[in-house]
């Protein structure tokens, strides 16, 4: 009998061993690079934006609605109107998108059967893939005259228009994520509840929705992030005029759209240029806070 322990042919680094090593290095590089890129972007934006410090007057920036960085005599950098523009458009979009997408997700995950469900899923995913400039185009050429006609207002490029467009854009993504969250609830819960005589809706409301609330919350917050960061469609549909909106028919300007429209026309390193980067920092910070909040809420739910 051979002594197996001493046999050197058994203990040798074979192809499987080497490929395992190679793959683990590759995925490590892939994973770490994403983090490095994000840190890099953060450092870049911060460095460009912090030069604005010497012009930084908190009272003016957060208290004034006058955004006039190109004024020769009196350049002002009040972002209140821009923040209000982004907030109003995103808020309206969520008002539209949340009920529709949750409804769609509940229908697809809980009520639809067989072929209907499959067709709907594919359709929703296709909707999510429509480029944002196409949505902006719809806002500009279809919604604009429609709003002017229906509500008898002079301009159809407004909070209502861009909120609708943004809501329609965010809904498919929210639907897909919310549906995944509902599907992740084990079928045994549904069976157990239905065996107790619960109707489909009772099962959904009392068992599935509470069990899926983390995922549903994630879906909503992702939608908020999407609305907040969307640029092109908002730029095209909102009217892009600086305004504190008092009605849904007022034109507004969003933070993102401001950066997109103005950055190309500023001198690198000028106060205007740095002010735009400051807007970038603000967007970055808010998105970060939304994600952090979502994370904390989800953790809180898991604990309780």
């Amino acid at each position, binding site marked *: 009998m051979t002594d197996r322990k001493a046999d050197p042919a058994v203990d040798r680094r074979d192809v499987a061993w080497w490929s395992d090593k190679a793959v683990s290095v590759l995925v490590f590089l892939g994973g770490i690079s994403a983090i490095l890129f994000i840190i890099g972007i953060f450092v870049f934006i911060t460095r460009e934006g912090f030069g604005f410090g010497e012009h930084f007057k908190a009272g003016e920036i957060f208290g004034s609605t006058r955004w006039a960085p190109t004024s020769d005599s009196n350049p002002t950098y009040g972002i209140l109107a821009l923040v209000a523009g982004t907030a109003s458009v995103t808020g309206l979009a969520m008002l539209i998108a949340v009920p529709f997408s949750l409804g769609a997700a509940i229908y697809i995950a809980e009520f639809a059967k067989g072929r209907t469900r499959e067709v709907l899923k594919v359709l929703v995913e296709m909707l999510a893939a429509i480029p944002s400039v196409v949505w902006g185009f719809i806002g500009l050429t279809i919604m604009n005259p429609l709003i002017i006609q229906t509500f008898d207002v002079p301009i159809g490029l407004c909070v209502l228009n861009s909120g609708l467009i943004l809501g329609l854009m965010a809904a498919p993504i929210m639907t897909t994520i919310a549906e995944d969250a509902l599907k992740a609830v084990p079928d045994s819960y549904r069976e157990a509840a239905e065996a107790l*005589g619960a109707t489909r809706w009772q099962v959904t409301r009392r*068992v599935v929705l509470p069990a899926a609330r983390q995922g549903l919350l994630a879906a909503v917050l992702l939608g908020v992030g999407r609305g907040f960061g969307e640029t092109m469609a908002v730029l095209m549909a909102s009217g892009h005029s600086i305004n504190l909106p008092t009605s849904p028919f007022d034109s507004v300007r969003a933070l993102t759209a401001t950066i997109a429209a103005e950055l190309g026309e500023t001198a690198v390193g000028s106060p205007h240029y740095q002010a735009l980067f400051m807007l970038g920092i603000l967007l970055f910070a808010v998105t970060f806070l939304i994600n952090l909040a979502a994370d904390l809420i989800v953790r809180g739910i898991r604990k309780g």
Partner: protein
Amino acid sequence: MVTATPEIRVQNLSIQYGEKVALAGASFEVMPNEIFGIIGPANSGKTSFLKVLNRMDTFTPGMRFSGTAEVGGRDVRSWRNLYALRRRIGVVFPLPVGLPLSVYDNVAFAPRLAGVRGKAELDAIVERCLRRAALWDEVKDRLKALGSLLSGGQQQRLTIARALSQEPSILLLDEFSIAVDPVTTMRIEDVLKELKQEMTIVLVTNLVQQARRLADRTAFFLMGECVSVSPTEALFTGDADPRARDYVEGRFG
């Protein structure tokens, strides 16, 4: 012998999943207040039979059945409100499914669906059901804890309490002791013997001795065929069917 109306009556019941036949032409009756055992090897159509009784077949794509299946003298297909049928029938699954709710809410689930709102009334129902399932003493101090935090045996008794909460006239148990330790199994068996006074119990089990301990009569299912229905003892004496005796004596299966 008094001739009572059978609580469950199946006549020539066949169940199919697509092309696959799960149960072929079974006919028998289950009397009120009896424990009716069903034994047989895996894939014999035992669970499928239970699914027909409370129309859980609607969850399973491709599942169809033909023949007669009556509960309380009425064909299960004639119910316009399936949910009302299911409320008459309590089901306990092989693996305990604690709904992601507290112990209290698990048991109060069905009564709440039925429209019971009063706190005192719900409290009374929850306590009664938990007592009947021999679980009250162990959980009375943590009714607000998540049901899924209980041990496996406690969870299974919780599902029994939950099944009882809708005051069913029939209790279906599908291999309830698979995930339960022997001591707890004995406790649940004692509970079942008492519940028999109030309802009809159908007990699908893999444990031949469990059927012997509990069941008044037992059906032996084999490969989708209902081979015999007899008083449980007859299985062991061979008076029912030689194949049944081979099975209970462990000669195949």
